[in-house]
């Protein structure tokens, strides 16, 4: 066990590689935390952001706050040797300070499809100095199975992802969003078109889109969206999905994280949409 002071000293000596010993890692982004854990390096994590909640054992780590509103000194107080961040970690001035501060700062690419996930895993493993082979093989196998299931779909369903229903307003996942990505991997078609990212959608546009299934995240408390809320909603309740009660609820980070479980999530969504096959 190397002492905290020695680690600090090590990080100050530029000539010494930062990860001569086991590096202390702070992770900023839920899918990256999941990849680190899947690579077997969870023991190196000393801090996480608010979105890093899977596996649940991560919750015991100090939380440095929301990934877009980080505190430079808060992150540095954990004395990391390596910071693994998703693309939109911020605010930018804080990221600048962190990059200048001594720990290695690695920004990992975002992903909304299979190759993106594999690239993210490869880059994360590289930053940690670990081999990604076993994990890549497993994720590739899951993605292949998902692709085979998606290819077998004869009548693709249109799916509307509803992020939130605050005050009755439908916040949906549009083009280029992670929701559209997972729906495509599962062999569905995104019902929300004409806008990018997660945005509010008018009731009439929801009716016109007429999704065959509605996809939501299972959350607790006020933010949860229940099938009853969908049925009672003036627009959602009148769509094919609403009338048939086809509401699929899945864990948010499992579904949209685009981490190592992406293939599994696509298979789970495919099964929910089209039923289990052989």
């Amino acid at each position, binding site marked *: 066990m190397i002492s905290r002071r020695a680690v600090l000293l090590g990080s100050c000596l530029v000539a010494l590689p930062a990860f001569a010993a086991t590096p202390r890692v702070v992770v900023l982004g839920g899918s990256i935390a999941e990849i680190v854990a899947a690579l077997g390096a969870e023991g190196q994590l000393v*801090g996480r952001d608010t979105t890093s909640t899977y596996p649940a054992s991560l919750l015991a780590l100090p*939380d440095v*706050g929301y990934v877009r509103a980080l505190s430079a*000194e808060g992150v*540095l107080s954990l004395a990391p040797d390596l910071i693994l961040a998703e693309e939109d970690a911020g605010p930018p*001035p804080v990221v600048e300070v962190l990059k200048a501060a001594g720990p290695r700062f690695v920004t990992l690419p975002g992903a909304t499809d299979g190759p993106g996930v594999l690239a993210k895993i490869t880059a994360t493993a590289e930053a940690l100095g670990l081999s990604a082979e076993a994990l890549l093989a497993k994720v590739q196998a899951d993605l292949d199975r998902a692709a085979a299931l998606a290819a077998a779909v004869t009548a693709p369903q249109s799916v509307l992802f509803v992020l939130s229903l605050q005050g009755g307003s439908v916040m949906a996942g549009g083009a280029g969003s992670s929701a559209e990505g997972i729906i495509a991997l599962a062999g569905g078609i995104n019902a929300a078109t004409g806008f990018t990212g997660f945005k509010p959608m008018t009731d009439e546009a929801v009716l016109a889109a007429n999704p065959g299934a509605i996809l939501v995240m299972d959350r607790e408390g006020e933010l949860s969206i229940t099938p009853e809320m969908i049925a009672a909603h003036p627009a959602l309740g009148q769509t094919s999905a609403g009338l048939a009660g086809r509401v699929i609820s899945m864990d948010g980070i499992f579904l949209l994280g685009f981490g190592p479980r992406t293939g599994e999530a696509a298979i789970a969504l495919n099964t929910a949409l089209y039923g289990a096959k052989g």
Partner: protein
Amino acid sequence: MTAQRLAPLALLGVVLLALGTGATGLSPLRLAEGLRTGLSAQESLVLWDIRLPRLMLGLLVGGGLAVSGVLMQALFRNPLADPGVIGVGPGAALGAVVGIVLGGSGPWVVMGTAFLGGWGAVALLARIAQSGGRTDIARLLLAGIALSALGGAVTGLLVTMADDRQLRDLSYWSMGSLGGATWQKVGLGALVILPVLLLAPRLARGLDALALGEAAAFHMGHRVERLKVLAIVMTALATGAAVSLAGGIGFIGVVVPHLLRLALGPGHRAILPLAALGGGALLVLADVLARVLTAPAELPIGILTALIGAPVFLHILLRRRA
């Protein structure tokens, strides 16, 4: 006179507290030791690139907001007036929303649009309030209300166009933060706010006379029109810069002047310089809490200033009723 003596001491205490407090274990004692034996690379980074610029930005922004508050309260002869009355706050908020939603999320973009928004609103209002070559305060107030509503509507329109991430950025912006403090920001802030802090006390005698009414001030030999324009320009500069540098930080502009009037009486010659110091000290103190309470994360500072400020605001209201 004791307040004048205490203020520099209190400020010094706050400065030491701010430099010696934070998530990393760099304490005042370690700082004192480090001055003799040298700080480690990490420690000097925390001191020079994180805590010091943040302290300076806090002093400038807090001072700017408090002095703006004093100027507005004198101009409107109302202890609850704040720079929002002349449209700086809503204008800057509108600018920030435009920057976040339409301009990408670059930090300089949002700062620039917020500052322009604040200035645009003031310039428009001042133009509307001109009647017969003089600035009509009642017109200014009413036009301010109308423009604030208009700004709010446009802000709302843009918010409905925003995506999830932009909405989160917006809500964090509206709660304010000194978290992104850099030396460039400190430099910009000093350039715009410092002259206002230094020049505002020159208006003190005129503002005192204005308390008796515009006509009385005029008959006492003050150039009332020039005074009003200067107060508005200074407020637009200081508040516009403060809001664009640190987001929406409420109540400093109401609380600090009020506390100073309680301690010193209504004379602006004493209040204006102390508002510059006291506003800075109070904001830096709130910032120390913001970064310690939930470390290693941090709270938006606007939450803390409102927590401190709202009860004081209510206190003023209740006293006025009595």
